[in-house]
């Protein structure tokens, strides 16, 4: 071993304390006459000594302690042991590790956060204003269009302002978290993100209605809607969390995607496995849009009634199931 070595007091995988040893012998124990004092009740007052032998090798010698000293890997009680790099020694509940100055450390981790100082789109003040305006506008339009009774302007205004309030409250929560963990509120950014998420929530039903009507697409539309909402949530949480935690983006994304995937499975598997409940309801897509939105072609009556042969087969097999 080196002229100078380091004695590390371990705690789990981490180092609790590190001592530079230059002059030997060094005494270790609970007593205050030691060079290194360990506050471990199972360590003797004068427990062990690190000293240089005549041949130059550094050794650890037990000084007749009450509970003994052990080599860790492999586990063995010892009276004296020659120190090798990374050697570990246990005494009482404490583990000591010895490392020379020549110990190789791992490569520096490249910090991705630090290397992208450019401002993201939704961090810009303009984006904040624009998003919230678009959100209010979209909610007003959807409130107006989905109401076919006489327009109540008071209700309509409320339907535009409530999402705005929700977005700002949501942003408030996140910016507190940002402040606590990263010492900066980032309120505007969080509000922009919240606004974009709410905008998505407003647009998803419109998109599925259009898909269901225009293309006459019915298969798996419910599942698609759910996936769209979940995707929106994952996207929003990802960016919110980027301003709260210091996790690597890849790790964050992985956690969120796996989490939402598990959520989707857990909510879908029971419905897939469950018996279908009896219901006299008719299950088909009810969305209607103006005739000019129709893209799918009309079928002939012949084709329509030919298709119903499949229906008949389906209900026949249901009847046989019991």
């Amino acid at each position, binding site marked *: 071993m080196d002229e100078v070595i380091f004695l590390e007091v371990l705690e789990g995988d981490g180092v609790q304390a590190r001592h530079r040893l230059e002059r030997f012998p060094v005494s270790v124990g609970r007593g205050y006459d030691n060079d290194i004092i360990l506050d471990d009740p199972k360590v003797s007052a004068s427990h062990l000594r690190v000293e240089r032998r005549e041949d130059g090798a550094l050794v650890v010698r037990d000084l007749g302690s009450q509970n003994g000293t052990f080599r860790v890997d492999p586990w063995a009680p010892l009276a004296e042991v020659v120190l090798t790099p990374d050697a570990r020694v246990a005494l009482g509940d404490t583990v000591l590790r010895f490392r020379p100055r020549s110990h190789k450390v791992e490569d520096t981790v490249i910090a991705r956060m630090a290397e992208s100082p450019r401002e993201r789109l939704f961090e810009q003040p303009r984006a904040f204003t624009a998003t919230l305006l678009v959100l209010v506008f979209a909610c007003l339009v959807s409130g107006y269009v*989905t109401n076919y009774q006489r327009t109540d302007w008071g209700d309509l205004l409320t339907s535009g302002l409530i999402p705005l309030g929700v977005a700002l409250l949501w942003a408030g929560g996140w910016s507190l978290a940002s402040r606590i963990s990263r010492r900066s509120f980032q309120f505007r950014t969080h509000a922009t993100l919240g606004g974009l998420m709410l905008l998505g929530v407003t647009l998803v039903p419109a998109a599925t209605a259009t898909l269901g009507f225009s293309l006459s697409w019915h298969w798996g539309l419910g599942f698609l809607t759910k996936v769209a909402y979940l995707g929106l949530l994952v996207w929003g949480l990802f960016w919110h969390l980027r301003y709260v935690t210091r996790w690597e983006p890849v790790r964050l994304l992985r956690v969120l995607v796996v989490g939402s995937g598990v959520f989707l499975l857990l909510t879908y598997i029971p419905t897939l496995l469950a018996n279908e409940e009896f219901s006299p309801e008719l299950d088909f897509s009810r969305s209607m849009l103006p005739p000019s939105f129709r893209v799918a072609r009309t079928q002939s009556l012949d084709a329509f009634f030919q298709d119903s042969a499949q229906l008949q087969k389906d209900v026949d097999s249901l009847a046989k199931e019991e």
Partner: protein
Amino acid sequence: MIVLIAVALLAQTPVVAPVEPGVPPGASEAARPEAPPPVLPPATHELFRKIQGRVAQVRIIERRSGTKSSIGSAFFVSAQGHAITNYHVVSDLVLHPEDYTAELERGAGTVLVRLLDVDVVHDLALIQTDVPAPDFFPLDDHEPAQGTRLFAMGNPRDLGTTIVEGTYNGLVQDALYERIHFTGAINPGMSGGPTLTGEGRVVGINVSTLGNQVGFLVPVAHARALLARVLQAPRKQVDESLLPSVHQQLLENQQRLTERLLASPLPQQPLDDYRVPGRWSSFLKCWGDTAHEPDTPYTVTNYQCSSEEDIYLSSNHSTGVVSYLHQHVSSRELGALRFASLYSSLYSQDPDSVPATREDVTNFRCQSEFVDVGGLPVRASMCLRAYRRFPGLYDLVLRAATLNASTSGVDSSLTLAGFSADNARKLARRYLEGLSWTK
């Protein structure tokens, strides 16, 4: 809705049958001398004392509890102990023979009853006791004149044999399933009892009521046919299930109904700029109305037709229904998008479904497409569910909404209950072809 008059005892509440105190029993005799009939009938109270033994109470006994779960009436039609009652009185026996038995209470005591056959379309059943019945009603054909005084007998609400006076008002006009209109109080528990003329001849079998003295009877001819059928071809095994027979009757009935509908052209009813299926057959009753609400920016006009009758299979399963509803909606104030959301909400409202349970039918399966109906683009959705007990019979619901204009349209629903898939398809197709636009 027509109320069937078998009584489920568990749900029974003491309701006093409407009695008219102003009419003493002798009133009918007092009126007689003005127009003396060729043969003077005996006084009615004497007559009924004589024939009281021909009417009995049917009790449906649930095997596990050993007590009656519902009651009805029956009357003897042969010396061998044959008696007629309603199908809906004994439907539990047909559908769950392992859970129910029936007995007949004849004043002196109860006797066990065998179920021989049913006529599910006309709501009749033929039962038999092992004890011979010396006194019975002969079932000869007899059609009294309108206004003839009739006497309905039965056991309303388990109060003992009762006689209710009323008048004959002929066959119900344009009925899908033949019924006599009897003006008199028919009450729960009188189901299956006979309605007689003053001479003691059976005119019909009590079957249902609309309340307020509007009662319905099954014409006696159907009971005679049922009795004749059983006497001609007695069933070999007593325990044999009646389900195949019911199945066959339902199949024949829907075939008859389909042929009747397809034989007549579907008239078109004008509804603003549209033509919609109108009153297809005389058995359908059609109604129309427009909601006049001053504050709505649109108008909805309804036009609906229904047979208003169904075939009773069990207390929660009906079949043999044809009904449809058109809703014409238009707006001058709403834009295309707002009209579309109004149209969506109309298209989301389905007509009342025909009652059925998990035991009776499967869930619906639907298909939804854009269909070209003679140049008119229509969004059509067709749903089908199968009968579990009667393979080959289905309920069909067709929903259609026209898509030719951006602020007006017709939303239409057709309900067919208890048809074969092919017949339902044929009818639905003819129905869809009845939609058109005149501009």
